[in-house]
């Protein structure tokens, strides 16, 4: 007599109706500005998401007349309103074409209602900055 279980292992996350999602913001010659959200992603109801890659880069393409902080910041806000910064790239130089990079990989598992934001900010006077902010994640059935 053969005995077997009817229990079936749940498929691994990438086999549960997974879909690749990406966000990107790439802009040159951006003038000084207050904190601005360039993209955001929210996990839909019934889904979860695995954040696999984040990338950010900034450099000044025109020197400011008065230098101050310019930055890219990526942060997660959970569905219960807990905020976690996951990547921040800053410059406080007026030198042009000095590149500042940052990246993260395999950093977070997000649940329904969790959000991820990419904000930029430049408090200088005059001049401009080039920004690149990218996200890659896999969304799947929770």
């Amino acid at each position: 007599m053969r005995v077997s279980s009817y229990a079936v292992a749940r498929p691994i996350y990438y086999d549960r109706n997974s879909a690749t999602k990406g966000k990107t913001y790439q802009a040159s010659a951006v003038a000084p500005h207050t904190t601005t959200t360039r993209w955001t992603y929210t996990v839909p109801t019934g889904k979860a998401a695995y954040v696999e890659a984040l990338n950010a880069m900034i450099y000044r393409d025109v020197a400011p007349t008065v230098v101050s902080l310019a930055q890219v910041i990526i942060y997660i806000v959970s569905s219960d309103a807990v905020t976690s910064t996951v990547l921040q790239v800053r410059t406080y130089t007026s030198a042009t074409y000095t590149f500042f990079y940052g990246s993260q990989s395999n950093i977070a598992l997000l649940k329904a209602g969790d959000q991820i934001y990419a904000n930029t900010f430049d408090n200088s006077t005059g001049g401009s900055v080039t920004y690149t902010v990218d996200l890659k994640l896999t969304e799947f059935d929770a």
Partner: protein
Amino acid sequence: MIIRVAVIGTGAERDPVRVDLPNYGELTADPVTGRAFVDVPNLDVPDGVAAFVRANPVTDLVSPLPGEFPPSLARQWAEHLARRYDLGTAKWHPVVA
């Protein structure tokens, strides 16, 4: 789909200038007119809103909308997002602008 929408927020650290949507990517924005072109997942746009956007094309961030965005479509969009993202709480209220 690409939609021109109104931006919200003061620009403070906890109140960034942003588009009132749960899922978007900014293509370009104009802080003076308070409008932005954003790329929104098709699943986030109800049929009525998509039809309105197609029927009222805009090519820049300055020109007025050819037609007024009806409050009924704004409500429809908010309810659609509430069902899809936050279990019925109407957190987002985007407006075609």
